[in-house]
């Protein structure tokens, strides 16, 4: 693989799509199939890892542009005031 870096989600999934398509249609040599498969697994792992990364967090951006954790009262159904 000349370029093993993965730019972002969209790039990863685009490449993964292309690989799957190639594997599905192409009359590829076994060796190439395996290389593609390996890359595909790598891409798919990347996506899953990124999915796990998102953090469960709620923040409030105040007028000075600072981020503060949101009060718990926001998570209840009734308006706090």
């Amino acid at each position, binding site marked *: 693989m000349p370029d093993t870096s993965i730019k972002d989600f969209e790039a990863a*999934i685009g490449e*993964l*799509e292309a690989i799957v398509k190639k*594997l599905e249609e192409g009359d590829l040599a076994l060796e190439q199939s395996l290389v593609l498969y390996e890359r*595909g697994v790598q891409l798919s792992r990347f996506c899953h890892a990124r*999915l796990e*990364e*998102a953090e469960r967090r709620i*923040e409030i*951006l105040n007028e000075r542009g600072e981020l503060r954790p949101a009060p718990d009262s926001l998570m209840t159904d009734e308006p706090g005031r």
Partner: protein
Amino acid sequence: MSDLFDLPFEEEPEDVEEPAPTLPVPSLPSRRVLTVTELTVRVRDLLEAEFFEVWVEGELSNCRVWNTGHLYFTLKDGSSQIRSVIFRSALRYLKFKPADGLRVVARGRVSVYEPKGEYQLVCEHLEPHGLGALQLAFEQLKKRLQAEGLFDAARKRPLPSFPRKIGIVTSLDGAAIRDIIKVLRRRYANAHLVICPARVQGEDAAPEIARALRQIARVPGVDVVIVGRGGGSIEDLWAFNEEVVARAIARVPVPVISAVGHETDVTIADFVADQRAPTPSAAAELVVSAKDDFLARIARLHGRLHSAAHSRVQSLSRRVHVVTARPAFAGVPGRVAMRGRHAAELSHALARVMRAGLAARERRRQQIERQLTTFDLGRRLAGIRTRLVGAEGRLTGAVRRRQHRAEAQLGSVAGRLDTLSPLAVLGRGYAVAWNADRTRVLRDAATVAPGDTVQVTLASGELECEVRSTVDSTQRTPRTQR
């Protein structure tokens, strides 16, 4: 003298909003010649007293804003017209933009411009006839922004497939923020929200929303923004019809979802936003479903990747087997042989992995066996033997019982050893290959030659096989039978 009405249609008047105090009116004798000014002043006083507050309906024409900010125009109907002015201070409060041809109802007072002897309507307020002022304002702004291309489909950006940080501009006191959080909590547990609070109702709402949009656009990582509020009257939702909000939405560098009021409420913000959600909850659902679609897409691709690779390998190895199974094709160079080599390499790799696993298991078994004999069993037996010797001649019966027990223990240990036997793994699909007379287990392909017979022990039954070719693990080139 007031220059209030000074040539409103010819040159710019001074920025004076109130007429000067009236001159004292002289008492009228039986025959008194008035000066022009005196008459004019009296006319003015009469008019101003009589028409202190009037409502006049008419059509706007000759609308013109001087750079003092006052708007001069003519109010007319089919047969008459009256010159009119609305001062900047009042003009500011009009939601719509007065324009020629509009039919309006004007509220104001009549006054006289003395230098010209002209009377004029000084308006306090204008409202569009028929349409409400707000609705007209809405139509006007919509038309203007549309002409600028702010609503063009080409400007609409797709929502991010996997939103990492969701920006929200709304009030912390309303139901909207709670609705959004509730949906996200339920369907996107690890969502990261950044809320920029803004008043969403009242005079200051529009500039605050615009400010919040600018602020949230600067938070690193925010990749989609929801702006909105819960339901209310058209006045309550008005901020979302203001130009500052529309322009702020257009300038947010990431996709914006507008979510104002209920299903039926449509605001200017909805036209400018990249996507309109009928309600705040629906906006949250939009974000989540983009994420769900993305996850499903990855899962599908992952599955397809596996099955495609697997079936590719299978079909290749099937073909290799079919071809190489025919003696006539054996050893034929070229593509087929190349494929055969790849297949051989693959099966070698598999075999290596299996061998490594087997070897590790074998090592463990041997270790356990060693432990059993050296410590457990050895010590026990030794102890028994010592005691046996010591007790010999005295407690033969007791010793015999102990010996029986030791034998029983030995038996159970042997049983455990048996389950660790390499042969037990045959049940899991492994096979043991022997040389022709079953005196030796085959560990190295080099110890047999093409044409040799090998015996293979399976979990159930035996095979007698003929070696067609062998592959050296170092050189990996098949040596086939000639």
